[in-house]
């Protein structure tokens, strides 16, 4: 984790370049995971860095976590905008909008999540998750592809998320 400039201190060109080179791949992956579009992902990440150049005096130290939150919020805004253009992605937007916390998981945790999906969920649930969360298909499209109802897709996703939350979100289990 890098923290490159402090309160009210303007970032040097060298510091900016270092931050860009170190953070870009991870930020692009985050944007792509939400948008599933190369051009949109490039635009979102470039927009975040352009903001840093335009507003060099930021109130907090800039680190990778801060940039991840900025990319996350920009991608959400873009999805909201796209929702107007393409109602078919509304289901995906609904799923992403529930992710409101700026605290984003690190790489190790993502590997654990993936391992859990591969080892602890049924093949059909895994397929549903892949279609909806990886290939960004709507519930309707996933239902058609698998020859099941939209309700069945919803049930698979709800169960999978419940199991994931029970495993990875201790607060979830405690509050049930």
């Amino acid at each position: 984790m890098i923290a490159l400039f402090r309160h009210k201190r303007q970032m040097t060109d060298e510091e900016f370049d270092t931050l860009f080179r170190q953070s870009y791949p991870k930020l692009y992956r985050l944007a792509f995971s939400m948008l599933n579009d190369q051009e949109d992902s490039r635009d979102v990440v470039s927009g975040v860095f352009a903001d840093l150049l335009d507003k060099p005096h930021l109130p907090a130290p800039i680190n990778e976590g801060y940039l991840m939150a900025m990319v996350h919020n920009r991608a959400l805004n873009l999805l909201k905008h796209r929702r107007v253009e393409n109602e078919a992605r509304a289901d995906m937007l609904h799923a992403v909008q529930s992710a409101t916390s700026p605290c984003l998981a690190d790489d190790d945790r993502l590997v654990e999540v993936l391992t859990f999906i591969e080892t602890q969920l049924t093949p059909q649930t895994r397929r549903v998750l892949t279609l909806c969360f990886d290939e960004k298909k709507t519930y309707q499209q996933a239902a058609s592809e698998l020859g099941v109802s939209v309700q069945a897709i919803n049930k698979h996703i709800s169960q999978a998320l419940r199991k994931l939350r029970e495993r990875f979100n201790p607060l979830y289990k405690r509050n049930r």
Partner: protein
Amino acid sequence: MKMKQPEDNMELEVMRAFVSQKSDQEIGMPDVEQELSRLKARRKDSASASEQHTGISLRKIAAILVATLLLTGLSYAAMRTSFFTQAWDEDKAQVTDVTTTDADPSESIVYTPEIKMVGDSVVLFKDFRLDSIMMQIDQHYQVTTRFTDESVRGIHMLLKWNPKQPLDEVLNLLNGFERLKVYREKDELIIENP
């Protein structure tokens, strides 16, 4: 009672987990160096476009000032029997002449106001009336000037104004003149004779 379930990033984490196992090629990862160069080039372009825009604005200001001058400035200056004049010496203001109340009309100073551009962004008002200058400042900063003492309206000034400066800095500049007290109340600039 069942508590509300905490919101989390689970859906997003699942999406990120799927993407994390893909190669750079599969997700079309751009070349980082190229992206960095592209960002810097784009920023350079937008900076030069912004400078061009400022140039156009300044030309507009100059045109408005010349029109104002033709209508009011010269004739009013010639008719004045009492006046102030102040000079601007680089960074600080100094009063050079003061009131003359019973002046002989033959000794009246005839002002020849003019406006010049100094460099790319600084406007030089030479022998301009304060109220004419304030008209331009009002328009640029979207404020309204009120004179509590009408006698200061007609002060002729030599003033350098950079429209890129924040309004507060312009007010500090004007307050450098001994015969002016300028302050702001919301969207109104108030000018007094201290």
